[in-house]
């Protein structure tokens, strides 16, 4: 008998979910938004956030005031070195400018983004055994660009400085002059091959967020809408278990969320070149677990919202802090400690962390077990709270 009860409960839930999805697929505008929303999110955050190597072809003016020293022109070799490096990286577009004042003027007009000045005593001081000084004229209104020019120049100087130093130590007869000049060398090596972009970082987070939010916020909206329109009464007068209403709605919303998740995945892989290192099945399992962890919270919110407007407002209020505190867009490690503590109680943090580990780092279940445990426990506890609350709400 109990078994039969569970079976009819499920069958009623499926009917309700089917009904919700039929409505969803008949709503053209809703469907379009369903696809456009994640696309917007990806495009916006993905393109706005600066990733490595995106700064290219900066317009930089070059002023060569060097008067030379005994027919020797150190600035010539510097400029050759600079051009050689730039030909590989294409970070700068160099143009010759006659004076510092001109650079300033052109930066203000927006023709240039910065400048490099070689002072008149450049060769002289180098020949006199002193440091050669270069001046970078930077656009303070754009710290990003100024930093990039400095970075490029630093690379050039480093290379040139090393070459000069190697020449100077040559007489010492060392087998490896580089080892003498620069005894230390640092190399960065990732866990997986290739260089992950910012999309690789945010795509898992956005997926986790969209899918989980669809349950937490979609559920209250869907139910309060039916209450407001009056169709809820049609279900309430049927001799069905109240739980099948909430279960059916949850199934419907989960399906909707998963559809959105898949759209994001397709966009991420197809449009933004995100590579999935781990198992795709594990990715879906994680999305479902994320939904499960949020169902209880969604039901609790549903029980307390009377109308659609409140539900929608609640959704916005909850969504924003969640978005920013769960490490979806910015690594949690960048946040102050108290914010990190808050993010540690949000299930989305764990879902997006686990998803990122699987998608970017190719992790398997053992590597994300902590995340999994937290999500399961959170889900179970919230559902245990939610079911009695919901039952009481339904019998008002």
């Amino acid at each position, binding site marked *: 008998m109990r078994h039969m009860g569970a079976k*009819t409960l499920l069958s*009623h839930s499926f*009917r309700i979910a089917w*009904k919700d999805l*039929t*409505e969803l697929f*008949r*709503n053209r505008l809703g469907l379009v938004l369903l696809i456009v929303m994640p696309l917007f999110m990806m495009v916006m955050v993905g393109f706005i956030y600066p990733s490595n190597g995106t700064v290219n072809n900066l317009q930089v003016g070059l002023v060569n005031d060097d008067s030379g020293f005994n027919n020797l022109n150190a600035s010539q070799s510097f400029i050759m070195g600079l051009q050689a490096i730039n030909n590989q990286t294409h970070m700068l577009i160099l143009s010759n400018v006659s004076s510092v004042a001109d650079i300033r003027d052109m930066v203000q007009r927006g023709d240039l983004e910065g400048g490099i000045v070689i002072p008149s005593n450049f060769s002289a001081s180098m020949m006199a055994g002193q440091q050669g000084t270069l001046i970078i004229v930077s656009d303070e209104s754009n710290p990003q660009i100024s930093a990039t020019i400095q970075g490029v120049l630093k690379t050039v100087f480093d290379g040139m400085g090393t070459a000069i130093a190697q020449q100077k130590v040559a007489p010492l007869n060392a087998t490896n002059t580089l080892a003498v000049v620069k005894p230390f060398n640092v190399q960065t090596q990732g866990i997986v091959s290739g260089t992950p972009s910012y999309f690789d970082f945010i795509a898992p987070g956005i997926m986790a967020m969209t899918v989980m939010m669809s349950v937490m916020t979609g559920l209250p909206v869907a139910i309060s809408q039916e209450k407001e*329109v*009056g*169709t809820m*009464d*049609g*279900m*309430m*007068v*049927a*001799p*069905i278990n109240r739980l099948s209403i909430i279960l059916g709605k949850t199934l419907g919303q989960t399906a909707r969320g998963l559809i959105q998740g898949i759209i994001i995945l397709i966009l991420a892989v197809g449009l933004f070149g995100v590579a999935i290192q781990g198992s795709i099945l594990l990715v879906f399992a994680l999305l479902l677990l994320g939904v499960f962890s949020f169902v209880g919270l969604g039901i609790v919110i549903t029980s307390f919202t009377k109308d659609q407007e409140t539900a929608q407002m609640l959704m916005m209020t909850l969504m924003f802090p969640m978005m920013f505190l769960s490490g979806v867009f910015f690594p949690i490690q960048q946040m102050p400690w108290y914010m990190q503590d808050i993010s540690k109680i949000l299930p989305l943090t764990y879902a997006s962390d686990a998803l990122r580990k699987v998608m970017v780092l190719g992790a398997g279940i053992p590597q994300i077990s902590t995340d999994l445990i937290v999500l399961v426990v959170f889900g179970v506890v919230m559902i245990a709270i939610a079911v009695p609350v919901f039952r009481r709400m339904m*019998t*008002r």
Partner: protein
Amino acid sequence: MANASIIEVKNLTKTFNKFTAVDDISFDVKKGEIFGLLGPNGAGKSTILRMLSTLARPTKGTATIGGYDIVKADTEVRTLIGIVSEKMIMYNRLTAKENLWFFGSLFNIPKDVLTKRVDELLELVQLTQWKNAQVGTFSTGMRQRMNVVRALLNMPQVLFLDEPTLGLDPQSSVEIREFIRKLNRENGATVVITTHMMVDADLLCDRIAIIDHGKIVALDTSANLKKMISGADTTIIKLDIPNLSSVLVEKLRALKCADAVTQENSTSLKILVHGDEAFDSVIDAIRVNGGKISSMENLQPSLEDVFLHITGHQVRDSADQKIPMAHRHFGEAPRRVR
């Protein structure tokens, strides 16, 4: 068992915060009866129906349907009843057939039976040719027919109808009324119907409970209710006064023999009066105030008059309430606020 009660209501009460919407009402509905709940906006009719159909929980009191308690045995009650609520219960993006299928599938009806029943019901309300159209495209009349038919999916023994003819043109109203009567006669369904339309109540109901301020103020057959007026020393006078003024109306309202005064239009009045000298007093009052009578008629009482008579009496003790009461029904009733 001929006169067995199928619904028994005892001291049913519903309060919202401090406001008492349904105030300690008791009544029985007999099996196979068409029972009407008649009352102005906000009287508490819908709230009574919602409680009886297990959609709202009574604050106090009990009720049974077919012997099942509406709170303790709500699931059993739900298998016995069907409800046509004030709001249309249907999904605009589903077709007529899909809507009926969906709601029907929530009552454990075997698939083949349900398929047949959905087709029959659509045929019954002449929606067969629209069965694959989304109900969002339907006219109000078609939607209301769908709304009524939805409540019949489980072949209910008791059908609750909340203002089923609201917003319908006279022809559709007649159709719905006929349909309800047919259901009652052919299927033996007990019908409880709320309305503030006197015609509906008068034409359809075996017995009528008049509800005001959450209380039953009268309960009887339409004929008996009318006898309350014509049998007693109460009469309805219809007057045409070409130079009718608001001052005159007020003077008539102030008369001791006048229970209620309603102005039909700019020149005619209906006055509910009692007492032997009622005619004389009314005519005198009009003359004294310079009114000219072009015609005077003694009307057969309608349910409206009964309603006025009863509620008018009720508030007679305080004269200042008489005017709002009389207006309350015939004029624009204040719409309730949530």
